[in-house]
C-alpha cells in the first residue's frame, strides 16, 4: 500500500530549519527564568548568564540531547492496556484542553462550566471510539480558580479509562497532579513504566522558558512522565511572520526544551508538539483554524520526524463561536492536514472559539470527522489478487453485489460507517426523522452516549485518596469542601 504522506518541506529546507534552530540556541541563546534549569545547562557546558537568565547552548549539547531522547513511547489506559503509541506515522486524537467555557446544549451559547459538565464530557470521550485519549478539557467554575487545573484531572481520573493529556497552570499544582496519577497507577515506578498521562508544557515565544512551565518540564523528566512541548510561535506577533520563520523559532524553542528535559533525565519521554498560529492582523487574535496555522503545524511535525521524535499537533479546532459551517470546515481541514503529516497525537476535537471553548455537540461531530480521517489515512488496500478480475468475471454483468459473500466479507473494513450524526438518508427520510440539523442530531447522540456510560472499576478507596489530595490543595486556597459528585457512580 502506498503510504499517504504530506510533506510541505523538501529535505534541504528541513535541514536548514534545523541548523537555524540550533544556531539560535547558540546566539542569542534561550531565556530561562528558572534557576534549576540554568544550573543544569551551565553544568553541561552551556554559556549561562545567570544575571540576564540567558543560556547559549552549543550545538554539541543539543545533538547529545537528541541522541538520548526516545523515538517512541506508549500511553496506557487505566486498565493497563496500551492505548496511544507515539511512534512513526501513527495517529491518535484527543479533545482540546484548558477551555474556559462550554457551549450550553440548550441555548447554544457559551457559559461557564461546572463540575457536572466536566463529568459529562469525560463520559462522552469514553464513549466515542474515534477519540483515543482524554484531555483535561475545561476549567470548572464551581471551585476556587487556583485549583482549576488539578481539579479537572481529579474528575477525569474518577470517570475515565483512556489515557489523558493534561497540564499544570502553576508550579505548585504539578505535584498534587502527579500524586493523583501515581495513586491510580500504584506508585511512581508503576506510573513511569506504564504512563497514563502526558503533561503539556509551553515555552513562551520568542525563546523563553517561564519559571512555571520550565519547572513542569523538569518535574516531568524527573519522574519519567511524558512531557509534550507546546511551542506556539504566533507568526507576526511573537514570531517571524513568514511561515518558514515561525517553524525555525518553533524548532529552537522545542530543541531547548528537549535539552533541558534530557539534561534532567536522559531517556525520559518527550514529544515534539505545538500550538502555533498566525496572528490575525485585523482582529489581533490567534486563529487556530487558519490554513497557515495548519501549514506551520504540518511543517514542524516534519521537522520533529526528521529529528526522530514523537510528534503532536493542535489542529482539530475552529475559531467559530457556534457549531456552524465554519466550525466544520476548519476542524476538518486541520484534522486532515495533521493526520496526513503523521502527527502521533492530534489535539483539538470538541474545541472552538480560539482555543477557549468546548462543546459536547462539536465533540460528537468531530468524532465522525476523525472516523473519516482515520479511514482516509488507512488508504486503499488490495484485498484480493487480482483485485477484481476474478470476481467480476464470475459475476459478469449482473451487478448484484449486495448479495455476494465478497461484499459481506469486506464492507465493514472498506467503509467507515458513521453514526446518525452524519445524515445520508433520502430527503423524505430526513423529513420523517424530524428535519433535524447536525447540531440537533449531535445533541441527541451526546445525551444517549452519556446516559449509557458504564462506571470504571475505580475503587472507593482510590476515590477517597484522590479526593483527599484535591481537598488538601483546595484548603490551601481557602476552599473547605469540594462540590459533591453524583451518587451511585
Amino acid at each position, binding site marked *: 500500500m502506498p503510504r499517504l504522506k504530506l510533506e510541505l518541506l523538501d529535505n534541504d529546507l528541513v535541514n536548514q530549519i534545523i541548523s537555524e534552530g540550533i544556531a539560535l540556541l547558540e546566539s542569542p541563546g534561550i531565556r530561562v527564568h528558572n534557576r534549576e534549569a540554568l544550573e543544569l545547562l551551565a553544568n553541561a557546558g552551556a554559556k549561562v548568564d545567570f544575571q540576564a537568565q540567558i543560556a547559549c547552548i552549543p550545538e554539541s549539547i543539543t545533538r547529545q540531547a537528541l541522541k538520548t531522547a526516545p523515538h517512541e513511547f506508549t500511553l496506557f489506559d487505566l486498565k493497563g492496556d496500551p492505548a496511544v503509541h507515539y511512534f512513526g506515522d501513527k495517529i491518535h486524537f484527543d479533545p482540546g484542553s484548558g477551555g*474556559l467555557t462550554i457551549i450550553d446544549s440548550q441555548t447554544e451559547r457559551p457559559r*461557564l462550566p461546572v463540575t457536572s459538565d466536566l463529568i459529562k464530557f469525560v463520559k462522552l470521550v469514553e464513549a466515542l471510539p474515534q477519540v483515543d485519549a482524554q484531555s483535561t478539557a475545561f*476549567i470548572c467554575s464551581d471551585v*476556587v*480558580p*487556583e485549583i*482549576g*487545573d488539578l481539579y479537572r484531572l481529579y474528575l477525569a481520573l474518577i470517570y475515565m479509562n483512556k489515557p489523558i493529556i493534561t497540564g499544570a*497552570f*502553576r508550579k505548585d*499544582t504539578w505535584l498534587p497532579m502527579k500524586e493523583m496519577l501515581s495513586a491510580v497507577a500504584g506508585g511512581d515506578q508503576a506510573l513511569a513504566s506504564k504512563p497514563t498521562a502526558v503533561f503539556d508544557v509551553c515555552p*513562551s515565544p520568542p525563546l523563553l522558558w*517561564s519559571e*512555571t512551565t520550565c519547572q513542569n518540564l523538569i518535574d516531568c523528566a524527573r519522574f519519567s512522565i511524558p512531557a509534550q512541548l507546546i511551542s506556539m510561535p*504566533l507568526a*507576526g*506577533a*511573537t514570531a517571524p511572520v513568514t511561515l518558514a520563520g515561525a517553524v525555525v523559532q518553533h524548532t529552537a524553542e522545542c530543541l531547548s526544551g528537549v535539552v533541558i528535559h534530557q539534561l534532567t533525565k536522559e531517556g525520559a519521554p518527550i514529544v515534539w508538539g505545538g500550538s502555533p498560529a498566525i*496572528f490575525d*492582523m*485585523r482582529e*489581533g487574535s*490567534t486563529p487556530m483554524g487558519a490554513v497557515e496555522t495548519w501549514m506551520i503545524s504540518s511543517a514542524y511535525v516534519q521537522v520533529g520526524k526528521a529529528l526522530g521524535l514523537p510528534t503532536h499537533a493542535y489542529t482539530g479546532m475552529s475559531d467559530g463561536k457556534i457549531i456552524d459551517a465554519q466550525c466544520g470546515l476548519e476542524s476538518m481541514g486541520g484534522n486532515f492536514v495533521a493526520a496526513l503529516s503523521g502527527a502521533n497525537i492530534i489535539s483539538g476535537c470538541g474545541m472552538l472559539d480560539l482555543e*477557549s471553548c468546548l462543546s459536547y455537540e462539536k465533540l460528537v461531530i468531530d468524532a465522525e470527522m476523525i472516523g473519516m480521517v482515520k479511514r482516509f489515512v488507512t488508504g486503499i488496500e488490495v484485498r484480493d489478487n487480482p483485485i477484481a478480475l476474478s470476481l467480476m468475471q464470475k459475476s459478469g454483468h449482473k451487478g448484484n453485489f449486495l448479495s455476494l459473500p465478497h461484499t459481506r466479507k469486506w464492507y465493514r473494513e472498506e467503509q467507515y460507517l458513521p453514526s446518525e450524526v452524519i445524515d445520508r438518508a433520502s430527503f423524505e427520510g430526513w423529513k420523517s426523522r424530524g428535519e433535524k440539523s447536525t447540531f440537533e442530531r449531535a445533541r441527541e447522540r451526546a445525551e444517549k452516549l452519556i446516559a449509557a456510560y458504564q462506571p470504571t472499576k475505580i475503587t472507593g478507596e482510590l476515590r477517597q485518596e484522590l479526593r483527599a489530595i484535591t481537598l488538601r490543595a483546595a484548603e490551601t486556597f481557602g476552599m473547605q469542601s469540594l462540590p459533591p459528585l453524583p451518587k451511585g457512580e
Partner: protein
Amino acid sequence: MANELFQKMAQSIIDGDSEVAVELAEQAIAQGIDPLEAISNGFVTGVNKVGEAFSVGDVFLPELVMAGDAMKSALATLEPELKKLGSAREILGRVVLATVEGDIHEIGKTLVGSMLGASGFEVYDLGVDQPAEKIIGKALEVNADIIGMSALLTTTMVRQREVIEELDKEGLRPRIKVMIGGAPITRDWFEKIKADGYSEDAVGAVKIAKGMVGKADQ
C-alpha cells in the same frame, strides 16, 4: 513652509517610520515651530488617519502598531522642548498596565497599551508577571489615573481581585480606577471583584479608559 512639514510629519506616522518622524521633530525644533502645534497639526493628524483606515479595514495591526511607535518616538523628541517652554502636551490620563503575577501572557496587554498610547494616554507598561505591590507602587509613583490588569489564566485572574482589595484598603479608590481584561474575564467576574471597567478588546479598552477620565467620545 510649516504646512509642508506638518504634512510630512503626518506621512511619517502613516508610514510608521520612527526615524523620519524623529528627524522631522528635530527640524521643527530647529525652525522654532511650537512643538504643541507640531504634535496636533502634524503627527496627530497621521495617527488619526491610520486609526480611521484601521476602523474601515484598509490597514491592519502592523500599520497601527508601527504608527503608534513612530508617534512615541516623535513625542520623546519633542518632550524636552515642551518642558523648556513650560508647556505640556495634553494627555488624556496616565495608565499603569501589567499582566498579573504568575501569568506571562503579554500580547493582549501590549496591544491594549499601544492603542491607549496612540489615543493620547500616557502608558506605563510594566510587563508580565507583576505582583500587586509593584503595580500599585508604580501607580502611586506616576500618579496614575488608571490601573489596567490583564490575566489570561483562570488560576491568575484572582490576582486582579488582590490588587483591588489592596487599593481599597489603602483608600486609593476611586482616585485610581481599575480596568481589567483577558480571555477568562467575564462581566460576572468584573462585577464580583468590583472593578471599574472591563473590556474584551483593545478598542473597548480605549473607550472605557476615556470614560474613566471623563473624556468619553461623544
